[in-house]
């Protein structure tokens, strides 16, 4: 091959190969395994990211809290009924720590108006100060003695006095609103 042709052909071939490799990566989940749905693919990394909950407050930032620290608060069992949007009720015993204990431990001044709780997937639920301070409002990691499903993240909120919409899971942030 002449010198000039070599200057053109080799780099062009390398570029083309790189492009073809780049455009084919990331597809498929491997032979023999059922494909994941888009909503499932987007959960990648969720569990680890939900291991730390940020707490924001107009009065000043509070330290993030991770799951291990949360679990060091007094553990409680709350018997509650998860009421679903269709009216179906699911009684159970959830194990966790009182939300008010965590907030106080992190230095959140009382009272406040409400907490805007954000989930990893963008879902948001707001709970009032009164709801947050109830003894049956907990950050739970177990249901009926077994860990909550991994899809729900390391902890979920259990609001014993309210229906299931407030029982938010995959929590990443709690924003205090005053």
């Amino acid at each position: 091959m002449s010198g000039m042709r070599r200057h053109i052909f080799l780099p062009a071939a390398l570029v083309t190969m790189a492009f073809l490799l780049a455009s084919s990566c990331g597809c498929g989940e491997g032979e023999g395994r059922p494909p994941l749905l888009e909503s499932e693919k987007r959960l990648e990394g969720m569990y680890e990211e939900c291991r730390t909950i940020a707490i924001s407050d107009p009065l000043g930032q509070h330290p993030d809290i991770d799951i291990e620290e949360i679990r060091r608060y007094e553990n409680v069992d709350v018997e509650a009924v998860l009421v679903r949007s269709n009216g179906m009720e699911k009684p159970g015993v959830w194990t966790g720590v009182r939300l008010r204990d965590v907030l106080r431990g992190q230095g959140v001044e009382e009272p406040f108006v409400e907490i805007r709780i954000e989930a990893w997937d963008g879902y948001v639920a707001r709970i009032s100060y009164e709801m947050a301070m109830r003894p049956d409002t907990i950050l739970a990691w177990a249901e009926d003695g077994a860990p909550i499903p991994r899809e729900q993240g390391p902890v979920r909120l259990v609001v014993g006095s309210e229906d299931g919409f407030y029982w938010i899971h995959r929590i990443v942030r709690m924003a205090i609103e005053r």
Partner: protein
Amino acid sequence: MRKRAVLLVALLVAAAVSLGVCGCGSPSIPEGERSELILATTTSVLDSGLLDALIERFEKSHPYRVKAVAVGSGAALLMARQGEADVTITHEPKAEVEFMQAGFGESRREVMHNDFIIVGPSDDPAGIRGMADAAEAFTRISRSGASFLSRGDASGTHAMELSVWERAGILPAGDWYRESGQGMGYTLRLAEEEGAYTLSDRATFVVLDEALDLEVMVEGDPGLLNVYSVIVTNPALFPDANVEGAREFAAFLFEKGTGDLIRDFGVDRYGRHLFYLCE
């Protein structure tokens, strides 16, 4: 000559890079001129692939950056009730009507529909294959003791399933009736593992069909119609909502081009329609 060779290679590199760059957002609308539009919707719209296609089309010609939150219908409506969503696409008509009656929405329009189907193992232990009445099929399943796996997660699919049990006059309970508590993909895979029947929206089943050893057992029951509606959040209650964006998005769903997209979506890849337009 050498310079010409270098220039040619540089052009090839530039062409390769520009072909490999994904088209995120329209180049004609600068990012700084886009406002955020929060759309709360369901996982079935996401998992079918339609959600991403709609957003991509919408963003090409509208100055918004759509933040899509895909949760259950009930959760999506709660977000809107709290002013956390500007617009919703959900498929739980009863909850939507209640939402509107409570004054949380400015407008509600039915956009598209498909259906729910009962799927199950190919050996069909309950003998329901080909039935057109879902309540009768559920009755046979419960009498046969064959396994049924419910979503059990307050999703629109779960609500539909419960309505069928109600029509059948059956309160499902027993070892044969279990709940996955999780999404449709997980539930379908678990149903396959356990040889159980389950109720699925057709679009999600079609997406996973080739990889699953489950078959469509019951379809065509008018009671299994799955209607998706768009609701614009009421600005009178939530003045901070992006109501202009929400109205534009709702109107966009009824444009002819969008209608063509919805109607034809999935035909190339799966050989069948995943959604039908509401007339």
